[in-house]
């Protein structure tokens, strides 16, 4: 723990101890069902209410929104405190703070650029978990190319009329608000300039959601349809035509959320240590699997890959060691990380022996079927936000300067 401006390190380490102590006494008991690893896996009322209660507890105990303005439910404290709280929660593997679009995207955006009215209206409900937020960027058939968004928002006096549809809306069926990107000007010379950004109420008439069942069998996303939906013009964030800019700004916050600006741990990370746990408990050919040399060689390969992946974040802080391909680490982290996890989770199943056939819901399943579900859920990361194939193109073209397809 290094010292922070104006804060004594003693204060920070005391605070850290306090968090750890709080966690020890407040971590909820095993609910008897497998908890989601990310906020994209909230597929049932049961899970939802459990997570809502947990987030409310974290917030009301002062460990969420610690750096948000005091007058809107935050703690008004330096960010370092939230970072410490997050670190401890991550270490202790408590459940996630699930309202991620609110905490990590909409909230920071409203704090930075919102009107007093917007702050007053939205912030507290985000922190308490009362108001769930969802995101409406992606559309069917357009993948992640935001430039080709088709959903229209037409100004009609004091309202906008929304028509179109969105896909991969996280918790679309539970959300109270959506950050919505829609086209207000279909004539704009550059297609990105025709977009506007809305804080849209999900209870508006004409909005319907259709839950998407994932390959895991669970839910967590919806398709969201807008049929002559009228929302107040006051839902427009910033100016008309600035939607693309605001969306890009919003995407920047994602990192902030992880880093603790909003607080709450959005992803329950798994690491190689978790995988090794399986290998330690399993028999293969009458011997402990962990003694099998082929398995050991495979595990070490994964450990080397993991180590290189984590270390890359530290190397990139030293420009001299990234001189030839300066943006290589930044642009390849998604591909490397998501593909590493895909292979690692698939491998976890090969370790389980006969038990790999079991699934979430079976009492005999290894770790409740966590790995089975995690392997399949992992495809959201190798497909969403630009498939691995597209990522490889991006790296080839933008890091190595190879020609486009």
């Amino acid at each position, binding site marked *: 723990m290094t010292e922070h401006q104006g804060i004594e390190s003693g204060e920070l380490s005391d605070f850290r101890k306090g968090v750890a102590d709080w966690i020890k006494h407040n971590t909820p008991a095993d609910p008897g069902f497998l908890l989601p690893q990310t906020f994209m896996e909230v597929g049932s009322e049961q899970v939802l209410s459990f997570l809502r209660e947990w987030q409310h507890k974290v917030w009301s105990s002062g460990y969420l929104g610690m750096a948000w303005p005091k007058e809107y439910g935050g703690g008004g404290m330096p960010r370092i405190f939230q970072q410490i709280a997050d670190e401890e929660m991550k270490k202790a593997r408590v459940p996630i703070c699930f309202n991620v679009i609110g905490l990590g995207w909409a909230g920071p955006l409203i704090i930075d650029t919102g009107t007093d009215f917007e702050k007053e209206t939205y912030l507290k409900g985000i922190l308490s978990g009362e108001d769930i937020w969802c995101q409406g960027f992606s559309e069917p058939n357009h*993948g992640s190319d935001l430039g080709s968004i088709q959903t229209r928002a037409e100004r009609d006096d004091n309202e906008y009329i929304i028509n179109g549809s969105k*896909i*991969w809306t996280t918790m679309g069926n539970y959300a109270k608000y959506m950050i919505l990107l829609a086209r207000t000007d279909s004539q704009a010379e550059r297609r990105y300039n025709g977009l506007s950004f809305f804080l849209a109420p999900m209870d508006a008439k004409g909005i319907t959601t259709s839950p*998407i*069942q*994932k*390959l*895991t*069998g669970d839910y967590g996303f919806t398709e969201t349809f807008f049929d002559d939906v009228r929302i107040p013009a006051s839902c427009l964030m910033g100016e008309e035509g600035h939607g693309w800019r605001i969306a890009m700004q919003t995407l920047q916050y994602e990192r902030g959320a992880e880093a603790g600006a909003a607080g709450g741990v959005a992803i329950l990370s798994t690491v190689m240590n978790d995988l090794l746990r399986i290998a330690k408990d*399993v*028999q*293969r*050919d*009458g011997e402990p699997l962990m003694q*099998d040399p*082929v*398995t050991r060689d495979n595990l070490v390969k994964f450990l080397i890959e993991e180590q290189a992946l984590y270390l890359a974040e530290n190397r990139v802080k030293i420009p001299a060691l990234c001189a030839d391909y300066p943006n290589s680490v930044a642009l390849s982290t998604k591909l490397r990380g998501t593909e590493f996890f*895909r292979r690692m989770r*698939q491998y976890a*199943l*090969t370790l*389980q*022996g*006969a*038990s*790999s*056939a*079991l*699934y*979430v*819901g*079976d009492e*005999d*399943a290894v770790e409740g*079927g966590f790995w*089975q579900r995690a392997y*399949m859920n992992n*495809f*959201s990361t*190798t*497909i*969403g936000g630009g*498939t*691995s*194939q597209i990522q*490889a*193109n991006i790296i080839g073209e933008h890091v190595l300067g190879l020609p486009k*397809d």
Partner: protein
Amino acid sequence: MTRTANLSIEFSDEQAMILASAKDFCRDKSDINAVRALLKSDTGFNSDVWNEMIALGWTGLYLPEQHGGSEMGIGATIPLVESMGRHLLSTPFISSTIAAQAIMRGGSEEQQAKWLPALAKGAIGTMALLDNEDWGATDTSCLLSTEGNNFTLQGKKLLVNDAAVADFFVVLTKYQDSIALVVVEATQLANNAISNRTLVDETKRAANVDFTGVTIESAAILAKGAEILPDVRLIGALLIAAEATGCAAAALDTVVDYLTTRKQFGRLIGSYQSLKHPTVEILIQMDSARTLIYHAATLIGDGKLSEDTEIACRMAKAQAAEALSFAGDRAVQFHGGMGFTYDCDAMLYIRRAQWSQHQYGDPQHHRKLLASLLLD
């Protein structure tokens, strides 16, 4: 491999006929809607279809004529099972076939006469082998003890395929420090002995079965259980390999379909080499598996399996499981957002891959044993 490699593949006209009719049958009876309709069902199969299969004589294909079979050899079932895999047609066929092989190979005349005719007529048998997650275990904690003329079982078996519909079980147990296979009829089980599992592959059914307290007569102990168990395991591996090969071909078809119809950035996505070339790799892996299963089907006979046959079965299982794991994984990825949904059939293949991988030993297990056969 200082040995000269055995490279024979033969396929009789009869087998070709079976293959042709199996293909048609599976296609007709098990289109994707039929498959999906059964996912949440209790038994996981359509009993009308199963009865038709029985009527076609498939359940007796490899059984001796004297017991109601057509005595074509176990190799003749490979085209059947491959076709079933290709259409995800689930029935107790594989479970029953392996159990029947155990009785045919390990049973006395009397034991064969008692159970094989019923099997030919469609009675359902299944193997109860696992004490834990280890398909390669060489010992068992399921014990058979004796008191007077009665034998009593003690132990639970895991992941017994099609247990809930089985008429009888061939149970791996230990009697006085020796491995034994005993036949237990479903009627002998205690209430609640069967505890159904939740499987990642929703087309399959399995349960844990507690045999504790079941009492059997000596006539239920297979005459040559310990002797034929390794061969039965190899046959199990080969049947799973055949099914997995068919399923990998189905995954390939699904991918090719999508790649030749879906457009992105104005191009059919199959024109991108990053999708095209791995799809070719699926073909090559599947093709290799197919070659190896029909090689094994050529070598396998009704007698004790030769070393060449053992090599062929293990290679087939190792290759088929790898092929399907790869195909299922890529099938999901290459369908993009669509692949992430339950509605996309890629889901069926990636789940089947998890199921097939470990059944009767995973690829690493078989390669380890192949190493002893080929390198020492």
